[in-house]
């Protein structure tokens, strides 16, 4: 497997895998949070998943905007790739969150503003993928609009915990992490980012190859 640039993704994949495999050791060295104890360490898998999901949404939304206003098919292919990765990382966040909530809050799903908005954001990008798969001709533009809508929803989801105070901790927690917790957290964010970049590159390459196959089929049919 090689990317269009000729670079192999295996180096990035290896970095991401090694960092991710070492994450439990790094996390084990972090101190326990006072009220949550061991369960609080799910934070190191849960929050980076959302950070990377937001990064993927930013890529998808920006590429969709370029495709929508500048008619760039390559930007559209990048948007499709980013949307799929968005759904994947969103799924990680939506699964690890209830696991954490069950132990820390006593409930799997509290239906507070943050969890509900996050679920809607995930469904937004599932809708994007369904639209691309079953929407027929012209669905790329509709889907691009949906991706832009999703991107503009991100700040609302992020800031919701500050506006509507619920069970979720506010956004001040992560910037104020002590160094002993901040370093493992950063480690996990970088591991997730490395995996994200490999996934995005690989998925984009797949989309490029599919476009080439379509072009070749058209050329074959014209013969």
């Amino acid at each position, binding site marked *: 497997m090689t990317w269009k640039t000729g670079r192999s993704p295996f180096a990035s994949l290896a970095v991401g895998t090694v960092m991710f495999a070492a994450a439990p050791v790094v996390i084990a060295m972090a101190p326990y949070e006072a009220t949550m104890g*061991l369960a609080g360490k799910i934070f190191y898998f849960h929050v980076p998943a959302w950070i990377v999901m937001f990064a993927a949404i930013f890529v998808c939304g920006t590429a969709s905007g370029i495709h929508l206003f500048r008619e760039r098919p390559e930007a559209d292919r990048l948007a499709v790739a980013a949307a799929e990765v968005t759904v994947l990382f969103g799924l990680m966040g939506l*699964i*690890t969150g209830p696991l954490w909530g069950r132990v820390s809050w006593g409930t799997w799903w*509290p239906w507070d503003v943050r969890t509900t908005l996050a679920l809607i954001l995930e469904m937004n990008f599932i809708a994007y993928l369904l639209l691309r798969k079953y929407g027929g001709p012209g669905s790329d533009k509709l889907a691009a609009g949906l991706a832009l809508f999703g991107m503009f929803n991100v700040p609302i989801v992020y800031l919701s915990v500050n506006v509507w105070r619920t069970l979720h901790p506010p956004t001040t927690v992560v910037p104020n992490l002590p160094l002993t917790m901040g370093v493992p957290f950063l480690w996990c964010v970088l591991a997730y980012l490395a995996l994200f970049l490999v996934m995005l590159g*690989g998925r984009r390459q797949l989309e490029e190859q599919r476009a080439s196959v379509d*072009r070749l089929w058209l*050329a*074959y049919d014209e*013969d």
Partner: protein
Amino acid sequence: MTRHVSATNDGRGDGGRRRWTVRAVALALAAGGLASAGAAPVPAAMQPPVIEEFVPIDELPEEDRLPAAPFLIAAYSIVWVLAFGYFWLLSRRQSAVERDLAALSRRLPVPDDDDTPGTAGEKQP
């Protein structure tokens, strides 16, 4: 005459409108009351628990103990499964596309050296 009738009607209309407004407000209030009565109460999990005494964890009944380790391990494992499951899926899809490309390139005539990639398969004069 017409003006008089119209004025009378207007008078009735005003009264009727007022009545309707009162009814609408009453209905809205009733609906609001019903909605607030029917709205889900704040979940018990969102209220801070009332602690009256400290209980050592080993004195808790078995069904009330919730060890965190299985949840932490489950969270880590699920992330692994999703991430590497996706890589596996990606490699399968890429193999399928490469098979399609190979099949197509066997069907299409080999382009000349000076052909651009996008014109493969065009009939030569």
